[in-house]
């Protein structure tokens, strides 16, 4: 269950609830403290008093509007009955009752012993609710006092996530700013990426050997960043292939990737001035099913014996199956993925591997497009923020912890608040 503010800051809320009880009109009474009101509910059962196990009621029952929602929740909290013990408890549970717009009490939930909170998610805005909780023994029920009526409130901004919003604006702003800078013609620097020079060499090798090139863009759809990066690199590869007049073969596992792949290769062939050499057969769709696709690509590899394999995009378990099969037919392999789990296999089994973000950087580097270069630079701003925050955070935590310096500990708390949403 989500812990709500009242359990952590009781004093603050008691003062507030005190205020609201006396001045219910001030600022939308969102907290209702239990009031002593008689409750007429048929709890007494037909058992002589002497045999009834009467337990103490819960105390300090508070109903408060749930913060930062659309006005659909009310939080309840209370101090459990003093008879609610871990060992030999006489309390067998609690029942939560709700009274809607001064109507009849309605039992809305039964809770286990030890419970001290409840989150009512079935309330509506514009209605008044009051609650009471009764403590159950094996044969009796003791109701608590009733809370004052409360109306759930709607909030327009989730202030708990303000830090996320600010960070989103900062990072988004940085990305957009650098894209615009790059568009205006400013040259942005991207460091050299090992393995990229190998692309030309690998294509040349395929030409010499007279064998085809296999391009696998991963197994995810067009909504995955890695697939898009792979297609950008494909554009470049296809351009060189068109010049060399080598065969390219691209089996895909998503129909949308098939269309995008065809358009990309077609565009490259056109740019190379050889639109006639292009054919739709270069890109074929196989199946969406992961291992069905792998089975088919494996088959293609051993039958067509490509000289070069590009494995760029989002890969899962198939990474090693493809890389090892490619290796067994003697292909040079250039791989790249941002799936950390598959990287070790690519690093081991392929000739060149683009590690994680290098895949995105490579696509920016090859295309030289302002949008890609700019966002790469924008992401570096994010990394700088992360590094700075980590550095300060670690230093303050270390000093604050080791020598108990209070003001430094306060900095840590502040920093944790900024970089935490829980």
């Amino acid at each position, binding site marked *: *269950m*989500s*812990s709500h503010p009242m359990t952590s800051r009781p004093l603050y809320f008691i003062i507030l609830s005190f205020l609201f009880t006396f001045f219910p009109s001030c600022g939308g009474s969102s907290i209702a403290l239990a009031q002593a009101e008689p409750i007429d509910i048929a709890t007494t059962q037909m058992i002589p008093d002497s045999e009834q196990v009467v337990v103490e009621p819960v105390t300090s029952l508070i109903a408060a509007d749930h913060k930062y929602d659309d006005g659909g929740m009310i939080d309840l909290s209370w101090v459990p009955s003093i008879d609610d013990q871990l060992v030999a408890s006489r309390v067998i549970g609690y029942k939560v009752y709700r009274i809607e717009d001064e109507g009849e009490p309605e039992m809305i*939930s*039964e809770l*286990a*012993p*030890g419970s001290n909170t409840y*989150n009512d*998610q*079935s309330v509506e805005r514009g209605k008044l609710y009051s609650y009471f909780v009764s403590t159950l023994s094996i044969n009796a029920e003791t109701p608590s006092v009733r809370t004052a009526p409360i109306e759930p409130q709607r909030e327009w901004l989730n202030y708990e996530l303000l830090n996320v919003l600010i960070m989103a604006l900062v990072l988004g702003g940085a990305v957009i700013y650098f894209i615009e800078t790059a568009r205006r013609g400013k040259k942005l620097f991207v460091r050299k990426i090992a393995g990229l020079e190998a692309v030309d060499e690998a294509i040349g090798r395929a030409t010499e050997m007279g064998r085809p090139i296999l391009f696998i863009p991963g197994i995810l759809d067009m909504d995955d960043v890695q697939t898009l990066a792979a297609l950008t690199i494909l554009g470049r590869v296809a351009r060189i292939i068109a010049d060399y007049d080598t065969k390219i073969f691209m089996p895909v596992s998503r129909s949308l990737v098939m269309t995008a792949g065809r358009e990309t290769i077609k565009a490259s062939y056109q740019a190379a001035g050889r639109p006639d050499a292009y054919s739709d057969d270069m890109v074929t769709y196989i199946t969406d099913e*992961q*291992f069905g696709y792998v089975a088919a690509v494996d088959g293609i590899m051993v039958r067509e014996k490509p000289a070069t394999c590009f494995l760029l995009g989002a890969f*899962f*378990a198939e990474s090693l199956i493809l890389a090892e099969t490619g290796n*067994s037919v003697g292909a040079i392999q250039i791989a790249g993925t941002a799936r*950390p*789990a598959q990287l070790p296999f690519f690093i081991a089994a392929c000739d060149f591997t683009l590690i994680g973000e290098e895949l995105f950087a490579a696509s920016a580097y090859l295309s030289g497009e302002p949008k890609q270069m700019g966002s790469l630079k924008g992401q570096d701003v994010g990394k700088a923020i992360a590094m700075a925050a980590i550095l300060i955070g670690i230093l303050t935590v270390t000093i604050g912890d080791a020598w108990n310096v209070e003001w430094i500990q306060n900095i840590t708390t502040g920093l944790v608040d900024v970089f935490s*949403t*829980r």
Partner: protein
Amino acid sequence: MLDAAFSIPLVALSDIGRVISLMFIGAGLLWILIRSLRAKEVDRRIVFLFIFIAVAAPILFPITFQERATLIVRKVFDKVESLPAGSKVLLAFDFDPAMAPEVQPMADAISRHCLTKGHNVIFMTLWATGQALLTQSLERVVKGEFPENRDGVDYINLGFKAGNENVLNIIVTDFRMMFPTDVNGVPLDSTSIFDDVRSCKDLDLIISIGGGKPGVKEWVLYVGDRVNVPMGAGVAAVVAPQLYPYYPKQLLGLLGGVKGAAEYESELVRQYPHLEERGTPGLRMMGPQTLAHMVIMAFIVIGNISFFISRRRERKR
């Protein structure tokens, strides 16, 4: 190296099959080593054959080991153990038959543990193929071993919905919008297990068992971090390392691969000895695992020896 190392358990094991298969594997590795030393290629099919034998032999002649739960596994166990009976636990079976040998043992162990403790378990899956597996699991573990538990009261099977993360994004605030009925067409409103459950906020524990996408990562991103419900996870070994950054803040614990399952099972059997006869597939799988690991390590060593020898020869030229 292998034979010497295995001499300790071998003293106790008199089974001839075990001895013969171990000797066979040892001799074979020696043969590969000698071939490699002479700088001769070893066909990959021979390597394949070896790994097949190394896995098959301990299945035919079981070797078992003791396990002790590591902290990261024990935290999940302790959480399930410490919740009071009747707590609402959601178990997500986000895997397909391909991954099942690896994660099914932990799915079974956790299901057993939850039902033994008397928790109310909600089963669901984000994988279409997961629903068919879920049906099998329920038949075997829930209906087979806990016949007194009632569908809709003590457990419920919500089944599969298409949409991956978007399914999670809806149930995080409203189960009924995504699942008007359970897998058998019974409306959620008519089941007592959902009386008090409107959204993921009302759960006491979520355990996602998976290994692909959508899987544990999506659960953390879309549900765990949003509602602050404790989340545990059981995953295929391949994704476990990349989930470590979420532990312990965003995930309370993590079971990685068959070893995670074996550790959980050992803890479960220690606490509830009567569950041992229900099967401990994770622990049993550790035998073949160990032998295969030894063979793979031997391969790495042999591969590197031959690599250094060939490099030295090249340098001499």
